[in-house]
């Protein structure tokens, strides 16, 4: 690791996965680092109210679903008794352990951790209002903005009621409601809907687009949609929420759309999960050269440098996709750029996305939907999990693995997987894309038997066979090349 010659001072605002990764690397490179966040320890949304607590709960949900499924294999359990306080305790424990660990790592690296909020005085000066009281004015060589994002609120829908929650509220597990309406069929809504459905809540989902997980390839979504049809009380597509009113004993919701069956329904609770927006309203930002785009994201170059040369921005606040692993990679790039490493650049070929529903959906690189929109010539090699020995042993054969391949070079451009464990499996495809692997590289790599990872190898094999070729319309093929 190249050390920086003189001791640079650097501030990182926001201690989420992007911010703490940046701060830790900067400290390891010999910089003097100040990390600023409101929470008691580093972790941010991801660890406190996002990826981590939701996965702890989804693990429990999977166990519940699995034990119910076991009846078909001749093993019956009585229906589960849920001790909500203990479950919440488990989740909080997970969060505490991980954020506490980060606090330790931060101390060991001699990172100055300030609990509070920061405001710009100028491009290099911050005034930190400390949570414990008092303010501190500090000057830095460079400042990294890692302020993240927050759930979108819809006026008239996100009404002020304890029964209407966002993802943070839902992760608190206030109770197990009899009925829950999830507004927004994106990944957050579906993951939390899965948790509540497993706990016994009748979950309904409303989505204004014609399918769940808009933007994801339809063939990946299909097995999930089918399962959700059974585990959820209702999935309302092409449907908008017209109004939300609190009344005694529930929330009355009016729906609007061509497929609406019941115009009004009453739910115990409502989860609004229609998206997240960047936290780019930072005090005093106008005193710097930082610029934002129309959607509120801070504009950055490949090194994640903003329009102000002293200031960098990473993670959700610097643009989509809003994913923790993208943020931490960006954090490292920004710090390397500050340290003067010429090779530092954010140029990924593939950023994996994982939806931790049951079944999981994961993809990376080019999607079929994108290729179609761009009229790019691709070939898709699919492998249905019904032909995977491992999937059959799990009694989960609805899964599918597909590789998106450039017909000209046979390079892997993208991959999509749906099925249990898809999130773990996708990593191999990311590496393959980054290494510019061609289909035969994957085909010729021995994969362990019997595992689900074989489905990736066998997809590559199917590329060379005839049966699984998917032919694109002639017009789409000509424009590629």
């Amino acid at each position, binding site marked *: 690791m190249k050390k920086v010659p003189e001791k640079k001072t650097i501030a990182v605002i926001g201690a989420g996965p992007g911010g703490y990764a940046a701060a830790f690397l900067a400290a390891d490179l010999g910089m003097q680092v100040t990390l600023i966040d409101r929470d008691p320890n580093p972790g941010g949304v991801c660890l406190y109210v996002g990826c981590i607590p939701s996965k702890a709960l989804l693990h429990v949900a999977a166990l519940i679903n699995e034990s119910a499924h076991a009846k078909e294999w001749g093993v019956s359990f009585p229906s589960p008794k849920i001790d909500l306080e203990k479950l919440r305790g488990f989740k909080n424990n997970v969060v505490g352990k991980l954020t506490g660990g980060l606090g330790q790592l931060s101390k060991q690296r001699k990172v100055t951790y300030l609990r509070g909020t920061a405001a710009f005085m100028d491009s290099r000066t911050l005034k930190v209002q400390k949570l414990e009281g008092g303010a501190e004015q500090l000057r830095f060589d460079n400042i990294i903005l890692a302020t993240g994002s927050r759930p*979108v*609120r*819809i*006026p008239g829908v996100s009404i002020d009621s304890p029964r209407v929650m966002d993802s943070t509220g839902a992760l608190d597990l206030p109770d197990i409601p009899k009925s829950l309406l999830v507004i*927004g069929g*994106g*990944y957050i809504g579906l993951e939390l809907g899965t948790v509540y459905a497993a706990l016994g809540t009748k979950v309904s989902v409303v989505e*204004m687009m*014609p*399918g769940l*997980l*808009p*933007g994801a*390839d*339809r063939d990946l979504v299909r097995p999930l949609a089918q399962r959700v049809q059974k585990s959820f009380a209702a999935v309302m597509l092409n449907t908008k929420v017209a109004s939300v009113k609190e009344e005694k004993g529930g929330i009355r919701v009016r729906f609007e759309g061509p497929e609406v069956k019941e115009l009004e329904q009453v739910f115990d609770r409502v989860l609004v999960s*229609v*998206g*997240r*927006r*960047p936290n780019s309203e930072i005090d005093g930002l106008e005193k710097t050269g930082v610029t934002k785009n129309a*959607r*509120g994201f801070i504009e950055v170059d490949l090194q994640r440098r903003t329009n102000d040369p002293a200031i960098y921005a990473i993670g959700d606040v610097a643009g*989509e*996709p*809003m994913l923790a692993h993208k943020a931490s990679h960006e954090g490292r790039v920004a710090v390397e750029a500050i340290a003067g*490493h*010429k*090779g530092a*650049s954010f140029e*990924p*070929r*593939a*950023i994996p*996305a994982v939806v931790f529903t049951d079944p999981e959906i994961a993809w990376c690189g080019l*999607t079929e*939907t994108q290729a*179609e*929109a*761009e009229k*790019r010539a691709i070939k898709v090699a699919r492998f249905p999990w019904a032909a995977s020995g491992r999937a059959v042993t799990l009694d989960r054969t609805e899964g599918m693995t597909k590789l998106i391949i450039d017909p*000209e*070079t*046979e390079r892997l*451009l*993208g991959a999509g997987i749906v099925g249990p464990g898809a999130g773990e499996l996708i990593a191999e495809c990311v590496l393959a*894309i*980054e290494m*510019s*692997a*061609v289909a035969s590289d994957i085909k010729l790599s021995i994969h362990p038997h019997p595992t689900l990872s074989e489905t990736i190898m066998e997809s590559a094999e199917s590329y060379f066979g*005839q049966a699984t*070729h998917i*032919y*694109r*319309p*002639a017009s789409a*093929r*000509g*424009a590629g*090349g």
Partner: protein
Amino acid sequence: MSTEVTLPELGENVSSGDLVKLLVKPGDRIEKDQPLLELETDKATVEVPSPSSGTVKEVHVREGQKLTVGQAILSLEAGDNGAQRPAAKRQAEPEPSAGKTAAASAASAPAPAPGAMAPAPSEGPGSGQAGRKAVALPELGENIASGDLVKVLVKVGDRIEKDQPIIEIETDKATVEVPSPEAGTVTEIAVKAGQKINVGDLILMVSSSAEVLPQGGLPEQPEPKSTENVMARAAEPAQAAEEPSVRDGEAPARGTWEAPAEAPAQEEPAAARALPNIAVMPARRPASGRSPADVAAAPSVRQLAREIGIDITDVEATGRGGRITFDDVKRHARESRISALPGAAAPALPLPDFAKWGEIERQPMNAVRRATARQMQYAWAIPHVTQNDKADTTALEKLRQRFSERAERMGGKLTTTAVALKIVAGALKVFPRFAASLDLAAEEVILKKYVHIGVAVDTERGLIVPVIRDVDKKNILELSVELAEVAERARNRKLGPQDLEGGVFTITNLGGIGGTFFSPIINAPQVAILGIGRSQWEPVFRRESGSDGAKGHFEPRLLLPLSLSYDHRIIDGADAARFLRWLAEAFEQPFLLSLEG
């Protein structure tokens, strides 16, 4: 069935050569590995063997022509399975045989399209098919009716833009690039390099972008596919037609949900939706050129390119699957640094029309000349310094004369060069930097633990530099014998590529012709070269011992002019002076060789 024989790979960095002699003619029955032609490359004259046996049907090349690797040489009719090929099979055929080059596919009749493929029937030029356009050689200027096609700049399958150069043509006036009057995808190339073409002749066919390229004509398959696969590909468009829209309606185009207009009444239309929007790089594809995302290179290789300031899209790939390796980036860095220098642009200087002022004659540069020109062009990038000195060879000359007969008995000639070889070998052991190379990309100096020394030989074709191996392990007599033998082979074109490779230093002796000092040019990637002039008797002033003034006498001494050019990036002046002095003293006192060398 007939196959196209193309010029195979000839070795590292050899991409072309001059056809010296054709060894077969149409009608000849040839065996596998039988030599087809004699080719003179930059490095050596080689015989190109046939990859298969059969009867020569047609020869596409002629003596004196410059051939490039991959170019079609001749068509070969295989022994038995000749003419009766089922028509259906023929349609799928061209890919494997024409796989190598565009020239090859052009030579073997235009690629026929499978009948099932409606959009792009491949018929002759001017068939009037919508979307398919013939590109012919346009008027080139007054009184110019034809020219020699120097180079085809596009290949079948390429997307070309209007005004993009498609061929380079040499007329009596100039070499010009001919721009395409059409945009589209090249479906067929009707000409090949070396051919004479007239104004109005068909050059190539393009199809407009919406159309499909005939699969059979695709030249750039990385690996030849089995026939089965080829047939499968040929059948694709038919199936595509039956399935015009894949899962239509199901997959909304990305971005629809991003559009604020589609969103419900939200106060915050700028907000992102809950779904991670994976805007990945491979999607970007500018109309012209490669985008970084299209380049096959591992993240670490891409990082190296960024670190040393190389645009990865400019790097030529040598790795499997078209991947760019670490070495590719480093090589590109080396080469681009050279070509980035002002001198390197010289060949592009437009030439005046010399014929305006009198009669001229154009002679093609032979391969040796081209190689020398290129090598010297590279060398221009090296910061040269030349250090001169004189060596007193009076004593050495006596020894040389005394032992010359012995050398002759062994078949050699005890020349100054033979002695110089031995002396330089000794000096290189003491001064290893003079046998080094510079790896600028890695910022490293490469020291070589072997002493192979190049010797410039003047031949009727031009300068050739054979390399004498392990000079340090041979005595002067052995070297004199080897030198005579190598020089002879150089003049008779009998040197192989291996005879010209691996030198760490070069000696050029012009003394046989005359002259004193000169400035030899370094034979890159070496870093130094020794030039030797003609030795002359000169008066040398010998100061009387003990005298402090100009007291003494002149003595006739035989002085040998030595000129050492060196690369100042790696060698400093003082080192060069020491090195040259060491050489001069070794010439003066050959004993030094056995003492230190």
